């Protein structure tokens, strides 16, 4: 549903913890050589003093550096995650506290597997577009969970991003429209009290990831009367390197529109953080006038699709932030032993 292009992104920030594990190292421990995914894959691992709250706070601070707004004007701080340090107690109150947005700010956590960030973004846009608040912050962050030895472990990374939505005339990228598509599909879940998620293996593909993204984007095309050729770039949720390329191809996009902003081989799949982190990474590099398609995917299952137009303002403000590339370049390799230690796979108590 279009909001008449009245709302957009006025600031954004990404964050990726510095540790990296090579998927080949995961392979070495669990499967032996020969089973590794195509190409080199490094995934980000949160340090021993990091979690979703600290990741979200850093992304939010970076967004605030760029936006240079009075935090009291932020009417909502909404972060999405599936790795809450507190099962009960909002992550978002920590973030809102850290940036000084409290006390007159909504602050709740959103959960929809990997897509709560775009769900929060649509709500934030609605909040601003309806005049309920001048600005609203949304974001996604995860220290992505994966069972040791599982296929997920090759990619499940750590990171997040924060976006501040505000009036279009202050925006570095204007939201031209967005849609959503959801069904009740149990392709991937983590039950209460369990450490690692379960998934339907090949079932997570066609009936899940592909069906939902394709449906959401098709609807967006319909509503905005656009097609793949109208976008400079398309950013899809990226559980691995191949899925976004395949879903893009099915939707009529060229590889060149998709490939520049796939981060899974550098930081892994950061679950709730993944799509928004790639969007932040893209905004660090795109030019005014570029159009960007965003399509998330959350198991359970749903997809949000959105269209953004980059404005001249981006060039003025983005140097105030910290580019995602900075954090990517900070990568410090660790072996599986340190990975196991840092991700609490070694139980001390």
């Amino acid at each position, binding site marked *: 549903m279009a909001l008449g292009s009245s709302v957009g992104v006025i600031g954004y920030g990404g964050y990726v913890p*510095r540790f990296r594990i090579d998927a080949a190292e995961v392979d070495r421990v669990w499967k032996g050589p020969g089973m590794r995914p195509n190409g080199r894959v490094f995934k980000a691992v949160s*340090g*021993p*003093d*990091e*979690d979703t*709250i*600290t990741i979200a*706070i*850093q992304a939010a601070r970076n967004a605030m550096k760029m936006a240079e707004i009075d935090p009291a004007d932020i009417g909502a701080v909404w972060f999405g995650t599936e790795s809450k*340090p*507190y099962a009960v107690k909002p992550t978002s109150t*920590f973030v809102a*506290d*850290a940036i*000084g947005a409290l006390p007159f700010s909504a602050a709740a956590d959103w959960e929809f597997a990997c897509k709560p960030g775009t769900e929060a973004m649509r709500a934030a846009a609605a909040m601003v577009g309806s005049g309920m608040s001048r600005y609203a912050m949304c974001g996604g962050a995860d220290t992505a969970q994966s069972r040791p030895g599982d296929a997920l472990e090759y990619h499940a990374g750590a990171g997040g991003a924060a976006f501040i939505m505000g009036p279009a005339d202050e925006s570095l990228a204007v939201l031209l429209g967005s849609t959503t598509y959801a069904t009740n599909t149990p392709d991937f879940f983590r039950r209460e009290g369990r450490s690692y998620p379960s998934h339907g293996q090949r079932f997570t593909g066609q009936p899940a990831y592909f069906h939902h993204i394709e449906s959401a984007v098709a609807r967006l095309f319909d509503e905005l009367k656009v097609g793949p050729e109208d976008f400079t770039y398309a950013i899809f949720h990226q559980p691995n390197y191949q899925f976004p390329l395949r879903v893009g191809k099915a939707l009529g996009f060229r590889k060149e529109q998709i490939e520049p902003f796939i981060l899974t081989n550098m930081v892994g799949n950061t679950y709730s953080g993944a799509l928004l982190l790639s969007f932040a990474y893209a905004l660090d590099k795109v030019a005014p006038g570029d159009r960007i398609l965003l399509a998330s995917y959350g198991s359970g299952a749903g997809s949000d699709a959105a269209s953004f137009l980059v404005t001249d303002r981006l060039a003025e403000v983005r*140097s105030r932030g*910290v*580019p995602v590339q*900075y954090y990517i370049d*900070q990568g*410090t390799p660790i072996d599986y032993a340190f990975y196991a230690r840092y991700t609490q796979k070694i139980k*001390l*108590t």
Partner: protein
Amino acid sequence: MDIARLWRQQPSNIRLLGSRCRSCGVLTFPERVRCAECCSSELQAYQFKGDGELLVATTVYEAPRGFVDQVPYVAGLVRLVEGPIVAAMITDIEPDKVAVGMRVEMVTRRICSSGADDPIVYGYKFRPVAHHD
């Protein structure tokens, strides 16, 4: 960590909130109820920026209880650009890369937790300034 105790520390721990004396202008971290310089009780909250310089550091191998799971960690003294000196851990850096005089910035990290049924203590640490173009 007792819940109320933790809650009371949050403004300084998470936001680096200190005090400015309305009477003599001195800045203190953390917040104080009375100025130690001029004894005035007219203090206002002061938001420190979180930028500073590392004055001295050590790598800790044998930690006090509560911090044992983080060793080896770097602990040092940081002089904030506004003046006060803060004792804090230095994170996101290999111990052998730590250099006195290094410019550092505040980040919020997990400090400790006494157990799974207790709150997590979040607070300031410092890391090398994120350099970029």
